[in-house]
């Protein structure tokens, strides 16, 4: 799978007979990109799966909840004001994701609990609000950098580096392990917050862990590749169709399936109109939006 992903592209590479420039394409451009795509997919799908269980809502998704946009704004702020500090970007992305999560959660929460529509609506409001700030910010940037950013906002893996890959790999690994460890508690949260409380879950702690690590996952993914949307929606949904609702399966399997999904989507993004490229987020949204509508109607 990874082998075919690195060989297919605007320049077709045979993995066994490589010329010198082809080696450069393989090792310096394509390999880090495919590896990064896999990690970004894992991050987003695991964040989506755990947020869905926590919020009792199969439509919760980092992109739709505004979490990705929060991370994007954080990344841009770091890029504009803290350009000299490379490490500031994922940190600011994490902060942005965390703040957006908390704001949406507080908006969606009411005395009567939280319903599907309210959560989605709060997500839309936060997303559009953050988008407008991002647009304001891009007008501060000069034209050459602006083009890069509009592409990046839609989800773009073309700037992949090994450093970005290592960081995302670390986040994906730690995040998946920690969130899988909460899966049994999440099984109860998914049934109902009150049920969870009655049957022994410290819901405040679980909520903190899930919000925190989902923000880490989304933050690192967005800092590396922009907002690739709908991964956290489609992947857990498909996984649940295959293995049921038990989060001890759903969370780790989402990591693997999310990785495969984004690698495939990126392959299409690189080859569909080669030698030019599409943002990978456009491909995932093309698949994801219909799935969202289907899930919304079924609710």
């Amino acid at each position, binding site marked *: 799978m990874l082998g075919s992903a690195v060989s297919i592209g605007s320049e077709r590479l045979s993995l066994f007979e490589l010329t010198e420039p082809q080696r450069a394409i393989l090792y310096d451009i394509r390999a880090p990109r495919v590896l990064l795509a896999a990690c970004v997919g894992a991050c987003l799908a695991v964040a989506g799966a755990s947020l869905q269980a926590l919020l009792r*809502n199969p439509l919760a998704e980092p992109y739709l909840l505004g979490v990705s946009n929060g991370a994007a704004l954080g990344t841009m702020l770091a890029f504009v004001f803290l350009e000299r500090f490379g490490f500031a970007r994922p940190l600011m992305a994490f902060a942005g994701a965390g703040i957006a999560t908390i704001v949406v959660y507080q908006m969606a929460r009411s005395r009567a609990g939280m319903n599907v529509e309210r959560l989605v609506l709060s997500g839309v409001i936060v997303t559009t609000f953050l988008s407008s700030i991002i647009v304001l910010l891009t007008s501060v940037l000069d034209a050459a950098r602006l083009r890069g950013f509009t592409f990046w906002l839609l989800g773009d893996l073309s700037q992949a580096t090994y450093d970005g890959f290592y960081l995302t790999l670390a986040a994906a690994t730690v995040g998946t392990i920690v969130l899988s460890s909460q899966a049994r*508690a999440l*099984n109860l949260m998914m*049934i109902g917050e009150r049920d969870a*409380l*009655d049957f022994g*879950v410290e819901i405040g702690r679980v909520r903190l862990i899930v919000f925190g690590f989902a923000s880490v996952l989304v933050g690192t993914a967005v800092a590396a590749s922009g907002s690739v949307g709908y991964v956290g929606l489609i992947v857990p949904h498909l996984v649940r169709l295959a293995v*049921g*609702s038990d989060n001890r399966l759903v969370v780790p399997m989402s990591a693997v399936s999310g990785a495969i999904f984004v690698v495939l989507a990126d392959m299409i993004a690189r080859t569909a109109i080669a030698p030019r490229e599409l943002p990978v987020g456009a491909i995932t949204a093309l698949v994801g939006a219909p799935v969202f509508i289907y899930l919304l109607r079924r609710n």
Partner: protein
Amino acid sequence: MRGHAACRSYFRLLSQKGMLKVHNISVKYGTRNVVSDVSFELGTPTIVALIGPNGAGKTTLIRSLNGTVPISQGGIELDGKKLNELSRREIARNIAVVAQENETKFPVTVLEYVLSGRFANGSAFGWETETDIAIARKALDECDLGEFYNRLMNELSGGERQRVVLARAIATDARILLLDEPTANLDLAHQAQMFRLVRERCRGCDASAIVITHDLNLAAEFADEVLLLKGGEVFAYGKPKDVLTETNLNEVYNVQVLLDENPTSGRVRVTMKY
């Protein structure tokens, strides 16, 4: 006693003197007292029917007993320990709740649902053991849900779901059951079955239960004690025949009733005069 797997442990039985003591508790929503100055002790094995008009504070009282609604005054002791010093897991191991089931949007199977009740008994991580699964299946069998293991919760009828919720509570090791209108969605046969199961559980396992119900005759039939709430305060507390009196019911519900004896059980029987 048909050895309930959940209560085999002899040592647990030894330590359950007193169980739940409630001293002068009040619960406030904003500035309004929803529960005022309620005191009682729950020994074993006892079934207490909690009755009273809508808005009397029944649900709030039950929710405060397992610490999910904070009390503003007074104290609750569980086996001699202060409830607010126990962790959620410790409380859940001792107190199980049967509440109105709220629909879940995820495809959860009946067995998964019942197993979720075992959360506090094992590790908070990892998987249920063989024992957990055996206990869950036994609870489902007892509740007449033998062939429902792999059905999805949101495919069941309201009454079936309500029985699954009871099965989950039975599948815990808890010796105190709190039931909030467990018979609300049930047909006649399953209403009686629900109370029979609760009674069997209480006698068999030396457990006790507090049951909210609007059916005064079921309360009279199955409860050892009746607690009548009015405006958040205990209006009367005692044996069914002492609480379910014409004056009490007239004063609390503002209705005229006829009281006589149930010819089959000899318990008090309430008939409305319309």
